[in-house]
């Protein structure tokens, strides 16, 4: 898991997925999706800061 989360290609893909979720949440609008997107983004940043 640690190896997977320190793989920059995986992180890159995850951030792009978060972007799509956030963009969809503000254009549809879908607040729950936005909430999930922000939580996911924070989690990615947290893993990058800690690993």
């Amino acid at each position: 898991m640690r190896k997977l989360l320190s793989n920059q290609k995986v992180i890159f893909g995850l951030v792009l997925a978060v972007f799509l979720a956030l963009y969809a949440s503000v254009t549809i609008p879908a607040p729950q999706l936005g909430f999930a997107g922000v939580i996911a983004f924070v989690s990615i940043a947290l893993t990058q800061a800690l690993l």
Partner: protein
Amino acid sequence: MLTIFSLLPLVTLLVSLLILKQSASKSGAMSILVAIVCAYAVFGMDVHGLSIAIGKGLSLAIYVLLIIWSAVFLYHVVHEFGAIDVINRNIVLFIKDPFVQFLLLSWLFASILQGISGFGVPVIIVVPILIQLGFDPLKSVAAVLLGHSWAVSFGSMGSSYFTITLVTGLDQQRIGYAMVVFDCIAMLMTGLAVAYVYGGFSSVRKALFYVIPSTAVTTAVMMLVVHLDLVSLVALMGALSGFLTMYLLYRLREKPERVEKLYRSELSFADALLPYGVIIVLSLLFPVLRLDRFFLSFSFPEYTTSLGHFVQAEGAYAKIKWFGHPGPISLLAAFIALMRYRQIGIYSKDKLDTVKTQTVRKSIGTSVTLFFLISMALVMMDSGMTAELATSVAMLTGGVFPLLAPYFGVLGSFITGSNTNSNVIFGEFQVSVAESLGVDPYIMAALQSIAGSAGVPLGPTNILMGASASGLAGNESGIYAKVLKPVLLTAAVLGVANYLMLSIWHMHIGG
């Protein structure tokens, strides 16, 4: 109290990069986390606001990444197929003196590229050329970052220049005249800074012979181009005239032997230069063809924080023009170069596979860091943290504000990595302060734009591009250490000039 919290993300970034010597990726991750916590807990930005701000940040990052990926791809194409070697050997034929090579390439050739495309392209193209010529990678990155920064405000076909005009609502040509005055100082300072990076104060003395006349000619040409209202060409024409002046001075002083025969391998010098020629031609051609209707952009709704900070809706955010954005232009140039290589028989699929692998390897880490840093800038802007910071500093400084005004431009570029964004954040603010002090707003607006330009070398995105282009990824703190003092010194000199013009001589360029 709010001011202290608005400073926290920037302090985190600086401490992490410069004191803890963490990588840019880790520092970026820590600062975006701090920014999110401060925005949510202190500045009244809810999850909806955060979704908008982070969404905007990521869309801007995609805009910048398209440039980085395509420029890195182009570089590996010309490197892998041997074009860069042909270019380097011919540069050495024309200019034997390593000091002149270093100064001319990082100060003026990079500025010509900035005039045409900008957005990091000078760094991506010139840094590898310098390294191939045998210069130290760290010095090469620092020199190019500093060297081309004077051309940023008028560069990228005038994008920052247009922005300062748009955000302040002031007359474009009048701001342009004032910008040229400040840009003369910035150009002089950056030329000397490049010389200092090369070899300390002895090189600065040697550089005066080239830097002063080249700056004088460039300033005159830029003034003329502003007068003719050719706003997109100010930096390009200025840098070209400076380049030719310096080369002529070199020929006059050193009297080099005439170059009888250009170096060539399987590629001629013209073939090697082909992709760069294509970039210049397409960059000049596309605006004339008016293909602006083909673009990709994002729209975001308006938003107000619970503290009352209002953020306008964006109809076409991070607009990527398919015929104008440097990304597609660089990719097209690479594609045309590959066609030419196939025609002369040096193309191979294995080489292209190496190019693809190298492009991904060099760009992926930079991309993740950019996602964090640009999102941090947007969270700070949209939550009102940036505005809070600016207002507090203006209140604290009062009458000496013109002296300190350049540091806002530098700060904007440091946070966002972009002169254009710095102008968006602080352009209107600087003009408001000028009006409240009763001094010329045109001079203050011009100062903001050129100071933003001088601060571009500190932009995390630019540092990352430099690190990526030079193979110094992970040593971003080393690059910061090299560029920080020259940028702060340039800002100080700009501040003194601004103070003299506004507070002592009470000048009114705006009429």
